[in-house]
């Protein structure tokens, strides 16, 4: 997909003016925030469960080489095939090779962000293989030629009228007078259309929420059952997963499952948690003849041992974006690549470069809600700060911002001068106080005041008042 992260500011401005998008984003609070809060409140030990989940991932990451080897050996022992892919291009080629070998014409897909990351659909389509997204949200956006705007609710940016129009356009063999007013009618139509695609597919591709080293098992978590029909009906099941998905045991996966759905959708457990191990066994009446796992690195191994290692604990629940005041008004597409919201602001610069994604770590008010709801306790604001520092060190920030920071640095290192300068500034501003007590514009700060007013200072600096207070005045 095209990367539009460098034009985040323009994307965001457009999104804020998009009435239909703003209406759709209004569903986030009812759909996610309220339900999560209720689910978390129902479990008094939830904070302990978060600690346990974090500790499991930290332990696994510290031994990632060994758990990956144990996992890969176990998959091989159960008749599956593991393919290590160093880059997105490697992963695409591995999947294409398998599809070509089995002469696949149609591929069904369960919802998978990792296949978005490697732009798999485009690659298969270019090579003559039809790909069908089967998660309802993914199916809708595939019809529109769009990409997910949320990692677990890909079509959260759309309203039902838009979906109805797409269904009428694409399902043109169905009677035009049919009633599609209610969401349940849209769901029924998608179910019937996709059922035929499921039964006709040659290869099914899913992602993975977990890979279990103990048993060589991949786990997917879904509500619709599409991931299951994707993997049990075709001859070949391909799992595409990144290397940090591995956990040691079934017990470890269970502990993380307890925080995953509650944080994501406010469910205690998703409807379907499916464990897949190898191909179908002799005597099995259904299931795939071949089982492949493509393990993608794509820059993740280089994050270990850096300030960004904590990001590898992410279980893709989406809570950070649901609770982010920036995401809530600009939506996911403004971020310009696969991963939106706070987790995307940290991960995207790692995967596509801070030169292209440098705006994203700035798309934060540092309110800290993302970290406070993250089930894996990932310090997202801290890591966004790391990226800001990194971008500054690499001279990627604009000259005006750099010179401003330079002036501030000069003053901040000279406390007497700092007190003098700020003292003069606040006295001047108090004198110039406009009617209503708020500045609507300020020289050198028009970018800031374009969207907000600055309350006029009362005439003294905080430091001066603090000094007086300490002196008991």
């Amino acid at each position, binding site marked *: 997909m095209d990367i539009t992260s460098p034009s985040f500011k323009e994307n965001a401005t457009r999104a804020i003016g998009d009435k239909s998008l703003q209406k759709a984003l209004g569903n986030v609070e009812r759909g996610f925030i309220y339900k999560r809060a209720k689910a978390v409140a129902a479990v008094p030990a939830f904070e302990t469960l978060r600690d346990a989940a974090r500790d499991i991932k930290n332990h696994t990451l510290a*031994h990632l080489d060994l758990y990956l080897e144990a996992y890969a050996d176990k998959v091989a022992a159960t008749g599956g095939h593991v393919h290590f892919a160093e880059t997105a291009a490697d992963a695409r080629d591995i999947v294409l090779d398998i599809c070509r070998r089995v002469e696949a014409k149609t591929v069904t897909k369960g919802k998978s962000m990792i296949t978005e990351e490697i732009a798999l659909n485009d690659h298969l389509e270019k090579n003559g293989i039809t790909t069908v997204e089967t998660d309802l949200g993914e199916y809708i956006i595939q019809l529109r030629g769009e990409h997910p705007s949320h990692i677990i609710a890909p079509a959260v940016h759309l309203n039902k009228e838009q979906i109805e129009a797409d269904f009428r356009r694409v399902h043109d063999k169905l009677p035009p007078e049919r009633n599609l007013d209610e969401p349940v009618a849209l769901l029924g139509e998608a*179910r019937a259309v996709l059922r035929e695609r499921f039964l006709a597919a040659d290869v099914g591709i899913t992602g993975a929420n977990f890979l279990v080293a103990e048993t060589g098992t991949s786990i997917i978590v879904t509500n619709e059952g599409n991931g299951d029909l994707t993997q049990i009906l075709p001859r070949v099941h391909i799992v595409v997963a990144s290397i940090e998905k591995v956990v040691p045991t079934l017990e470890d996966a269970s502990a993380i499952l307890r925080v995953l759905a509650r944080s994501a959708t406010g469910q205690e457990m998703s409807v379907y948690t499916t464990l897949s191990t190898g191909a179908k066994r002799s005597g099995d009446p259904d299931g795939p003849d071949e089982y492949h796992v493509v393990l993608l690195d794509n820059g993740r191994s280089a994050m270990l041992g850096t300030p960004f290692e904590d990001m590898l604990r992410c279980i893709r629940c989406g809570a950070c974006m649901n609770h982010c005041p920036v995401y809530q008004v600009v939506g996911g597409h403004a971020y310009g690549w696969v991963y939106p919201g706070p987790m995307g602001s940290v991960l995207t610069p790692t995967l596509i470069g801070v030169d292209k994604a440098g705006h994203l770590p700035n798309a934060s008010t540092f309110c800290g809600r993302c970290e406070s709801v993250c089930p894996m306790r990932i310090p997202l604001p801290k890591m966004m700060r790391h990226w800001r520092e990194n971008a500054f060190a690499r001279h990627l920030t604009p000259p005006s911002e750099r010179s401003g920071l330079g002036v501030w640095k000069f003053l901040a290192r000279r406390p007497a001068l700092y007190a003098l300068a700020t003292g003069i500034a606040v006295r001047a501003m108090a004198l110039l106080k406009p009617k209503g007590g708020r500045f609507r514009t300020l020289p050198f700060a028009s970018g800031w005041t374009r969207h907000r007013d600055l309350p006029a200072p009362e005439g003294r600096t905080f430091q001066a008042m603090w000094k007086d207070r300490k002196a008991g005045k």
Partner: protein
Amino acid sequence: MSGRDAVISRIRRSLGVAEDEATRRLTVARRLETAPVAPQPAQAQSSPAERFDLFREKAEAVSATVTRVASPGEVPTEIADYLRGQNLAPRIRRGADPRLGAMPWKSVPTLEVWAGPSDGNDPVGLSHALGAAAETGTLFVTSGADNPTTLNFLPETHIVVVAAEDIEASYEATWQRLRTTHGKGTMPRTVNLISGPSRSGDIEQTILLGAHGPKRLHIIVVG
């Protein structure tokens, strides 16, 4: 260098792993062997006396229906009654699970019973669960000739039989049950953890039942 060697050695470089790593290997081997259990919420620690009620409460909260019969012999009649109540045709497809096979199907002559996997044309599938976890009303169904996985997903109505004594408190306790039946580290091709009928919230974040999987999930607890 293979992809595997390249990725593993890059991980080891990033982690700063030293040559002598006997301790790390021992730590990993021990964890895989012992599978320690993390702290659990109270709802995963129900006593045997509380377990059925909690299971039913949690399963009903996610839109499954739950009924309890005293013996396997009552299951066919219960199924016929359920289908009549839902206004569904008395035709089911089941796997070869011997516990299902031993049930007195002939006692309900109106009920048509087929065995084997589904091709998508069966309105009702019947499975026997390995067990269940009361903590979230979750069924554990394993694949095999006894329980074809297609029966869990293709029919619009899924009926699952589970023995009352197989309802455990937690996921972890059910994994122990699986290790007893299949052996440590050995898995059937598919294990489906099922909590309610299929649903989607993808249209305006409104939850609708019956996405790609069953629209109804009926659980019959035996014993």
